[in-house]
């Protein structure tokens, strides 16, 4: 057991190092210069511009050779410093990200968990109910195959513009400041609903299809046939099948949860929802090295933690993994 987790941990540390290095490299490969972009917004005299440029380049630590920037980056990272945002200068990246994260969690955690729960149960029922399989499942296929931004825009258009029930932008009404009150919470909920529903719908279809296929596979397996030949009630056979079919779904769920901090880029862009996905888009458009790095760092950590959680969860729920650890390849 200890050797198993020791090896896993080593792999995770290596992955983290490589991923963060790539994360540092990629923004710097982009053509252009973030400071230039920033200064070009202000109409300045040539001399003033030169002075300002020198100042900002030093402030962001971009005046030293690349290898030194890289070392400085790791050094700062271990001190919990992700640098200063270029686009939202002079706010620290950590603060910018922390402001966006609650919206992601609020939006994605319920969407992912509820769609997982509902999709799995619906898929399991559809697997053994012919009319449901023939009517509602194709809808699931269509939902999953729909280009997401199109569905998002459609929802925004129908419910936001045509029917005018839901607002189409922001996380709360522009007239309000975030505070604890009924009016603010109501506004928050109203703005939350459409992005939530669009993610829920698409994910629900995906989970339901996966579960349906897994259940059919399990019900056709040898152990199910044996139980049937022994006259076991359907209820028990389905219980066994469901338990086995849910295993791959758990992996999927954990991977989904891992990217929560990444936000749902397209959803957040469509509905102008101020989560990390929206932030990433802004950061890329403004060549904000530090904000891009910061956002992706969160994603890397999230994915790695989720994978580690799956490794642990599998040891608990699937005896085959647990017992396999004592054998070769452990």
């Amino acid at each position, binding site marked *: 057991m200890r050797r198993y987790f020791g090896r896993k941990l080593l792999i995770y540390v290596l992955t983290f190092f490589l991923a963060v290095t790539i994360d540092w490299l990629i923004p710097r490969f982009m053509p252009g210069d973030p400071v230039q972009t920033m200064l070009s917004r202000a109409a300045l005299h040539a001399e003033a511009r030169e002075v300002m440029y020198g100042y900002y380049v030093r402030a962001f630590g971009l005046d030293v050779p690349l290898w030194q920037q890289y070392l400085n980056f790791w050094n700062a990272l271990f001190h919990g410093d992700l640098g200063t945002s270029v686009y939202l200068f002079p706010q620290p990246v950590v603060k910018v990200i922390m402001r966006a994260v609650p919206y992601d969690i609020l939006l994605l955690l319920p969407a992912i968990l509820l769609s997982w729960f509902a999709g799995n149960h619906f898929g399991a029922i559809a697997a053994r109910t012919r009319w449901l399989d023939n009517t509602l499942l194709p809808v699931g296929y269509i939902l999953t195959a729909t280009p997401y931004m199109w569905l998002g825009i459609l929802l925004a258009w129908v419910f936001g513009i045509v029917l005018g029930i839901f607002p189409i932008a922001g996380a709360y009404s522009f007239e309000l400041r975030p505070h604890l009150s009924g009016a603010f919470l109501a506004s928050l909920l109203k703005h939350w609903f459409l992005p939530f529903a669009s993610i829920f719908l698409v994910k629900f279809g995906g989970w339901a299809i996966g579960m349906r296929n897994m259940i059919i596979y399990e019900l056709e397996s*040898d152990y199910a046939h044996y139980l049937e030949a*022994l006259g076991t009630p359907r209820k*028990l056979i389905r219980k066994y099948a469901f338990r086995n079919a849910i295993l791959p779904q758990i992996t999927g769920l954990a991977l989904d949860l891992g990217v929560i901090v990444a936000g749902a880029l397209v959803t957040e862009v469509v509905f102008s929802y101020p989560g990390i996905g929206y932030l990433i888009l802004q950061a890329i458009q403004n060549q904000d090295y530090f904000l891009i790095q910061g956002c992706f760092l969160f994603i890397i950590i999230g994915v790695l933690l989720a994978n580690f959680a799956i490794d642990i969860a599998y040891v608990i729920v699937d005896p085959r993994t647990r017992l396999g650890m004592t054998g070769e390849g452990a």
Partner: protein
Amino acid sequence: MSLQVEELTVYYQTLKGDVRALEEATFRVADGEIMGLAGESGCGKSTLANSLILLKPPMRLVKGRVTLDGEELPIHDMERMNSYRFERISIIPQYAMNALNPTQKIGKIIADLVRWRQVDFDDILPELKRRLDLVHLSYDVLDMYPIELSGGMKQRVVMVLSTLLNPSLLLADEITSALDVSSQKAVMEMLVSFRGWEFVRSVIVITHDLSILYQVADSILIMYAGQLAEKASTVAIIRAPRHPYTRMLISSLPEVGVKHAERRLTGIPGTPPLLLNPPEGCRFRERCPVAFEKCVDVPPFIQIEPGHFVACWKEFETNARA
């Protein structure tokens, strides 16, 4: 009394039409009899066994009735049949090594199965342990997952589990086909002991291996292409077979003491017919060396000597002349 099968006819429904896998099977298995059911692949052995316990689509019951201990089995009714399965008629499946749910402990699987039979697991536990002992398994297996056991151990668990409620008829479907020769013998002897210990009353052993049946079976039923060919005591089938197919089958077995480098093993020329549109009459007639014009009619399965049944026109003719 035991098992009485009358005119059992089962087809498989396919898009191209019915596959006529079992035609007019009529035979009986006496109390305490171990009957071997033999024939080549696709001859309908497993169809016969499955239709006795789990007849479900694409299988379709065309006609026939099955009586077990004087009571007619509702084989066409999946739900009503449930109360007979496991308690009165049970099966050791062909895939015994994969027959247990991989994510549940064996003890839990057994407990779940008996609970539906109004049997308390704790009540049956001493008997279960005794039986595990008899098949040389430790009680620890109850606390293990199926993957922790070897293939042979899993098969023995399934043998104990399938017979736990002392069914009157046990179907053993190709239980030796995945085993080496010495394990085959051990498993077969265990099956005979099961009858001795009265865990089961009668057994139908389905196999394509006649030499195994010779060791354990009281009688052998030979099938060809969905039709019954011959049923007789094991000795009669091996020493004095009457159906031409049985004769050719027996003669294509290797014999001890014969060097097959000098005398080539003879097979049966030709291949069995497809059962989607099988030929009329005796389905063996195209490969049969003694076939004649009468063979275009289906020969009845008739007793020609006490306990010796055969379906062959030529045989009836020779018998009548003698």
